[in-house]
């Protein structure tokens, strides 16, 4: 009986998807180039309006954000530069891992770059961000350098966490990692938001997790506290359709992750369109900072690679699916097309941006590769227990009878 009941539960989501009357519902597009703009000014800094696709958002207990976005040519070019930089950096990490120069666990965000870029362009440097292990792009956007991020992956002293953390343990100013345990960062994010509220800062926290982590109990505990105390937090589910090797529908009773806050308003966003993400997060930030409470966002996105370096990513989804997303929904290609259509840049200018982003990433990667390996000294072992400069005179060592003097 037991196993039968379970079986029924497992296939239920599939069956429901097959027959549910979805036609009557508007669903979010993942078209990366669905926005429109006209009358683009000549000047780089003169604002103009972009009209987002009607299918950019789906709402839950909330009015949608405005479907228009104020931007400038300079910002659009910067966004494009950022997207290309992240992808180039992830490709470098991929290569270094395959060359066995990067050891350990490594999860790449290729395909999902628009989420990191869109959020960063919507929040301020004083807002807080916390995410899970797929964190390289966020570390870069929050102010990390390619050199420090790749240096970290290589375990070098000049790495963003002094080479002590590796892939999923990166911090940057107002970026609280980089967390290796799925879901564990979400209640920590609620704590960040509580501190912001308590100290009267007019800032918000963006706490991100994947569609896999969305089923962790502590995510719901965080929802409850955030709503109970009206914390300035935007929970954000990066739904890339697969929690490791299990598709969302096989792991989640409700795959509408933006509705999972139940008593928290939610928004589903085209996570391949960097402009839609910016519009949504800008709107959500204002909403939550003004004291209206938390939000649950879902960024519909896609990872091109496997879950980690040891997952080829093709055992649980078809190569055609990956190819289709890459060739028709790519965030970089989408923005590129818009920039050309709207004549924000010429072909040549765009190529120059591409070239500049790639070569500056490549240069920094090369510098990181040249960094020396750390010395195995106890001085290095004992640093960073305290904030540098605030160490006590001595510290108990690796066992009770060992003492290290700073």
């Amino acid at each position: 009986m037991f196993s039968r009941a379970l079986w029924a539960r497992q296939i239920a989501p599939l069956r429901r998807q097959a027959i549910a009357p979805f036609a009557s519902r508007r669903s979010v597009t993942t078209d990366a180039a669905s926005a429109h703009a006209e009358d683009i000014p000549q000047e780089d800094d003169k604002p103009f309006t972009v009209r987002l696709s009607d299918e950019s958002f789906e709402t839950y207990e909330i009015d949608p954000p405005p479907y228009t976005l104020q931007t400038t040519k300079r910002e659009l070019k910067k966004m494009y530069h950022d997207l290309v930089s992240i992808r180039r950096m992830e490709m470098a990490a991929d290569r270094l891992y395959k060359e066995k120069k990067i050891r350990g666990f490594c999860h790449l965000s290729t395909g999902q770059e628009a989420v990191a870029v869109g959020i960063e362009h919507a929040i301020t440097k004083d807002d807080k961000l916390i995410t899970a292990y797929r964190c390289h792009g966020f570390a870069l956007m929050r102010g990390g350098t390619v050199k420090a991020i790749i240096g970290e992956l290589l375990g070098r002293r000049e790495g963003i966490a002094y080479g002590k953390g590796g892939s999923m343990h990166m911090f940057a100013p107002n970026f609280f990692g980089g967390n290796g345990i799925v879901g564990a960062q979400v209640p920590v994010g609620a704590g960040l938001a509580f501190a912001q509220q308590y100290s009267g800062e007019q800032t918000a926290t963006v706490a991100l997790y994947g569609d896999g982590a969305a089923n962790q109990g502590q995510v719901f505990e965080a929802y409850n506290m955030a709503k109970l105390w009206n914390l300035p937090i935007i929970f954000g589910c990066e739904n890339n359709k697969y929690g490791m090797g299990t598709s969302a529908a096989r792991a989640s009773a409700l795959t509408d992750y933006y509705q999972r806050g139940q008593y928290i308003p939610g928004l589903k966003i085209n996570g391949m369109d960097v402009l839609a993400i910016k519009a949504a997060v800008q709107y959500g930030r204002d909403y939550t900072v003004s004291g209206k409470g938390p939000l649950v966002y879902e960024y519909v996105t896609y990872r091109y690679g496997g879950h980690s370096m040891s997952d080829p990513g093709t055992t649980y989804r078809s190569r055609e699916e990956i190819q289709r997303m890459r060739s028709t929904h790519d965030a970089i290609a989408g923005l590129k097309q818009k920039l050309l259509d709207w004549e924000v840049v010429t072909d040549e200018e765009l190529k120059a941006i591409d070239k500049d982003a790639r070569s500056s990433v490549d240069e920094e990667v090369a510098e990181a590769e040249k960094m020396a390996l750390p010395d195995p000294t106890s001085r290095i072992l004992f640093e960073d227990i305290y904030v540098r400069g605030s160490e006590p005179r001595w510290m108990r060592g690796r066992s009770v009878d060992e003492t290290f003097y700073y």
Partner: protein
Amino acid sequence: MFPSRTVVRSFPRWFSASSASSGSARLNVPIDYKTTPLLHHTPSSLATSLEFPRSASTKRLNLYQSINAALRTALSTSEKVILFGEDVAFGGVFRCSMDLQTEFGSERVFNTPLTEQGIVGFAIGAAAEGMRPVAEIQFADYVFPAFDQVVNEAAKFRYREGTTGANVGGLVVRMPCGAVGHGALYHTQSPESLFSHVPGVRVVMPRSPSQAKGLLLSAILECNDPVIFMEPKVLYRAAVEHVPIESYTIPLSKAEVIKLGKHLTVISYGQPLYLCSAAIAAAEKAMNGVEIELIDLRTIYPWDRPTILESVKKTGRAVVVHESMVNYGVGAEVAATIQAGAFLRLEAPVKRVAGWSTHTGLSYEPFILPDVTRIYDAIQQTLEY
């Protein structure tokens, strides 16, 4: 005849050749799993090991293949055995459940959401109804959301069932543990001592493919306590040996004397046994006439005190080795038991060689974990004491 303590102190005869020959660089070479005496490289060595049927036909398997074989055996033995966890349907990240869904169907072998607390709680409920659920936690580092379920539900189940007779025997929570050299903070930990603090669960860690199959089948099919079954993940591919094809069990809570000796007892479990074996070989070679006993605890809780005490009463010296942190570790419990139970026979303080009390940063694992040199030094110091 083993010399008395005073003789050892004044005439350390086996140390004369040792000091110059044990440069750490030479001792800390990678473990050669193809030649280590801890693995059965031939069917005959397996047969001479008393706990296996002598006539058994064997197959060379690595650790993940033997776990897979044990799971297959368990699933075919009893309809009550079910297997689930994150990504187990397509084999799990370490391939331990390869092809089992195809063979036994998705009613019995299935994926769960990423929800460790849920996985273990769900398994406890199933076990309470008489199922024999095998729940996989993808890495031991991920088990902590489920700690409440293990400590407060599984471990206390029989204690609080009143007169209903309900129990969760048959529950097995499998998890890969331990360092591989580059796991950093969240893919390296070995939390056996945390679970061993709590009466009510058994904590098992096998050292090899043939041990793993017998112990796992024992845990799933025979044990009437919930079992935490920890698999040293560095051995999944590295350790290859002959494993009986037939079903067999190895009793839980029974240690095994792997190698007999007279002068010192080394007690360990899981992967560090290979380091111990190498350190013992080096020490015996360098120190003329010394014979060191090596014991695998196998079950860490409740553990086999008589075997350890009997050995230490014989040798008078003990070194405990484990990979997880030294503070409040298994070594502390073993050392305390030895001093309480073999005090008058002890010739030296019990020494612990274990991971240092710090977190395993990506590039620092080799400095934190016990290695052959540290074990060798501990053996030497304990003998010289």
